[in-house]
């Protein structure tokens, strides 16, 4: 029996690990969307973060530089999106799609020489406690610093949006850009900042994949996680804490299907692999059925172009 309990502890630990990229990317996108900007380039920014993090790790042999660099590369690539949508007033949906296509191509191009290079072991915190405490050990300890950050992020985001003045500014810009602008808030600047922040978080989410979760570079290694993160924001009805819950559910499905594959479940592997995508659809349907609830929580100006006559 004690074996079962410790196994469940390890299982929960691995579910947490697999939900990290989703938490990071979705929390970043949540801030972007709360400011009224719909950035569909999450997948593209994540994959750019993944390759730049990995490449920097190989070049500098320094994981700190790799992590910071991945966030910076996310910022740089999201700047393209920001410039187009905010300064040149382009359509958010089309620009985001372009960002994803561009990002996937660019990452494959940059990553050509990094395929097959083994990753480095990422340091974990409190690894001693992980072994010595049954059940809670593998859940609470022995994770990377990025994981702890990811699990704190939804709470920080919640605090930021609800309790700080800047958070109020972001929400005002997202819900009513015209009145915010009349109050003297620089709507475009706020939106730029939110886009770049989203880029940084997506870059970090990508680096988590290539440096920590499966420490190597594989083409297209984000495998739709960016899109699932986008779905999570809708699922969470733009609430940071619900993002955390949603990410854990999806992490759970991913781990569950891997375990089912491992123990030779009689369902074909491909059907199990399709589970997270099918679940996303089902969850979206369930959440979206109540159109009033969605309308009430969606940032009012989401995806709309704001232009101030000068």
């Amino acid at each position, binding site marked *: 029996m004690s074996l079962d309990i410790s196994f469940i502890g390890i299982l929960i630990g691995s579910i947490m690990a697999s939900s990290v990229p989703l938490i990071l990317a979705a929390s970043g996108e949540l801030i972007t969307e709360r400011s009224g900007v719909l950035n*569909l380039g999450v997948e593209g920014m994540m994959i750019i973060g993944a390759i730049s993090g990995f490449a920097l790790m190989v070049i500098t042999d320094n994981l700190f530089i790799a992590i910071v660099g991945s966030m910076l590369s996310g910022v740089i690539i999201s700047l*393209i999106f920001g410039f*187009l949508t905010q300064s*040149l*007033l*382009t*359509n958010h*949906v*089309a*620009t985001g*799609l*372009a*960002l994803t*296509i*561009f*990002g*996937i*191509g*660019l990452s*494959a*191009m940059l990553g*050509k020489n990094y395929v097959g290079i083994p990753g480095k072991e990422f340091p974990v915190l409190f690894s001693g406690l992980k072994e010595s405490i049954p059940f809670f050990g593998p859940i609470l300890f022995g994770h990377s610093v990025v994981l702890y950050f990811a699990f704190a992020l939804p709470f920080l985001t919640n605090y930021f949006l609800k309790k700080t003045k800047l958070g109020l500014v972001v929400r005002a810009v997202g819900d009513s850009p015209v009145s915010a602008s009349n109050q003297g808030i620089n709507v475009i600047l706020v939106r730029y900042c939110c886009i770049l922040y989203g880029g940084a978080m997506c870059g970090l989410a990508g680096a988590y994949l290539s440096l920590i979760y499966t420490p190597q570079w594989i083409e297209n290694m984000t*495998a*739709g996680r960016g*899109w*699932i993160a*986008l*779905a999570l924001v*809708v699922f969470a009805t733009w609430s940071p804490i619900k993002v955390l819950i949603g990410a854990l559910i999806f992490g759970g499905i991913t781990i569950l299907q891997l375990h089912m594959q491992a123990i030779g479940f009689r369902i*074909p*592997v*491909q*059907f199990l*692999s*399709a589970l997270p*995508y*099918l679940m*996303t*659809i089902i969850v*979206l*349907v369930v959440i*979206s*059925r109540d*159109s009033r609830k*969605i309308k009430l929580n969606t940032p009012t100006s989401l995806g709309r172009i704001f*232009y101030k*006559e*000068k």
Partner: protein
Amino acid sequence: MEVPLIKIEKRNDAPMALYFFTPFIAIILTILGGGIIFYILGFNPIEALKFYFITPISNLYGFSELLLKATPLCLIAIGLSFCFKSNNWNIGAEGQLTFGAIVGGGVALLFYNQDGFYILPLVILAGAIGGMIFALIPAILKTYFNTNEILVSLMLVYVSKLLLDYLVVGPWSNPEGFNFPETRQFSESSRMPLLFEGLRIHAGIFLALAAVMLSWFILYKTYLGFQIKVSGLSLKTAKYAGFKGKTMILVVFMISGACAGLAGVGEITGPIGQLHRMISPDYGFTAIIVAFLGRLNPFGIIFASLVVALTYLGAETAQIFLQIPKYTGQVFQGMILFFLLASDYLLFFKVKILNLKKNELRH
């Protein structure tokens, strides 16, 4: 003293000519941007661009390859133009292409050892229906459950690719195929007839041309086309006019899915001749760019599909001759869309260069 001053004014009356001219600006900027990337990668930019845009189509075979790649892009983009014009963001054409290929390929496999003139039409029809059904999923979820069609159609891409993977590895894999992840070869009767001896260009191109003509007719000469355009411009107006929004959404998704399904079936019955994992180099995603570059106009899409097909060919040629990774193709495609969207700025704003006397500036 005269000081040049740039003044930017909003306008609502961009001339139609500019609307179709800006894609050319985007293409030129993309070529320049590509040159810069090649320079950074350490290649002679002029030489690299020549291998990219001129070498591939400098002979008849290359030209046939260009048409071969433009065919699915054109077909899918024509379908997508119906969705995008009416503000329905179907971005899962890759999945509809895959599912169409699965259904069409399934029919072709039923007849793998038979001959008959009726087989190819059946396969094509099955492919179109397959794509249509697959596109109906996001459409129905959108209309009846208020679900975001972008995310649903995209998730279905992954599902369809996994389904294809399962089929070619499992139940449909070639019994004499030494466990390669591929099906039997289709019989000659399920293959698209080739147009010229020794070239790969096949009759599927007529499907694409027919789609262009038909879509022009529907969009500009029918009530449905009018509804689609009005809904795209203003949903409120469409509602006020009493258009049945739900039916229209279902119809545009069905058209777009059928086109993607046809593209898929054209690939497997044309150059490929069987089902395997890699039936499409992301044609379904690239066609989104084609649709925009062609300004959602049927004839514009023909032109755009040729341009974008060239980025595929150029990437292959550049990889062979200069060892430039073939993914530059996608980078080029992303850049085209970026620059296109950016140059739309000229449509909404008038950039005026004024020459003012210095003392006038104070006012």
